[in-house]
């Protein structure tokens, strides 16, 4: 049974999103499955664009990270593209997420 943890991402404006993330999947792919697009660029542990600030909890990286970028990141930073939770985890996002548009068409009709 793969452990699953609650991961919460907080934006600067105080808004939060929260998902169950297995310890075998990256936070970014888990949130993507739930319809959230997190700030990212290379998604390969090499650029630092997705780095969030850890507010509480533990994580580990599922794939290698660039040491060059890790050293630039302030203690307590986490690359969301390759990190998986090892406990319940709360982080502060670098930039607010966007929501996947899955009901664009229905929304139009509903709002008429």
């Amino acid at each position, binding site marked *: 049974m793969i452990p699953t943890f609650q991961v919460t991402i907080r934006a600067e404006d105080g808004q939060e999103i929260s998902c169950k993330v297995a310890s075998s999947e990256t936070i970014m792919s888990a949130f993507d499955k739930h319809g959230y697009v997190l700030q990212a660029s290379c998604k390969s*542990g*090499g*650029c630092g664009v997705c780095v969030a600030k850890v507010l509480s909890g533990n994580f580990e990286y599922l794939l*290698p990270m660039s*040491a060059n970028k890790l050293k630039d990141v302030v203690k307590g930073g986490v690359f969301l593209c390759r990190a998986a939770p090892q406990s319940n985890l709360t982080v502060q996002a670098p930039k607010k997420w966007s929501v996947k548009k899955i009901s664009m068409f229905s929304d139009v009709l509903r709002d008429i």
Partner: protein
Amino acid sequence: MAVTRLNYVSLYVTDLDLAKKHYEEIVGLRVTDVTKNQIYFQSSDSQDHHCVILNSSDRSGVEHIGFKVSDPSDLEEIKWESEKYGLETVTVDSGEILGIGEGVKVTLPSGHCLNFFYHTDVIGYANGMFNPKSIADEVMGVNPLSHLDHLLVTCEDPAKTIKFLQEVLDFNVSEMASAPDGSMIAGFATVGNTMHNIAFAGGPNGGLHHIAFYVYDRADVIRRTDLLKSKNIPTMEFGLTRHGVAGVTTVYFFDPAGNRNEFQCGAYETPGVPDRVELVTWDVANLMGKGGFYYEAAVEPKFFITVS
């Protein structure tokens, strides 16, 4: 006599197996040599031993860059002139880097290391050198690409390094972007007749913005963009686009270590010697608009800050 052109780039990757898969299957390069911690690749239509070297490391980014010279005596001259200029040089023994002869490594003011060398083993084109076949047997769903075309690297003071390249190594600058105060934000430098072999833009010293491969047709850029998206390879915003700077059609994407790659097509030619053609210049406003992405006329800041 002189530097001829860009020959290869040596990259750091954080996972050699993942990176091998990428450069073989997504980019479509041939593996030409392997050591314990390195893999050497060449494109189908380039004849020298390699155009990309991957080095297993704990980091991503550019390790060093190879440029060829047309006379063995150039190496001694480059060593002497670079040291006179105040730069560090290191002698490279023949075979220290597989497939090439002795060289001189020079550390530029930008922090990047350039290896100048005369000889490379010739492995020939994938189609053959004698009554060649038309297309390579292995085509990764798209036409093979032509060659490693250029790099864009970052440093704190692009003008300083470009000055060295111009004064000592006879590089030409084709286009340039400047800040309102006139200082150089980005300079596109070439020793051959393409628009640039290596470009320098503002950013951390020693940084890599991207390496670019040349494809024969813009239809190939389209097809390759289709394939990148279908294989979920991270691409930059807008996917396929055209740069206002140089007018080339392009798509950017990332290797599994986070090094940015590019496929581009565009025949832009330059005279190959300095000061023949008046410089083309870009101001910041235009660079951030149609200069970066011609169709969309808007550049996301992270296009610039994402550097490995």
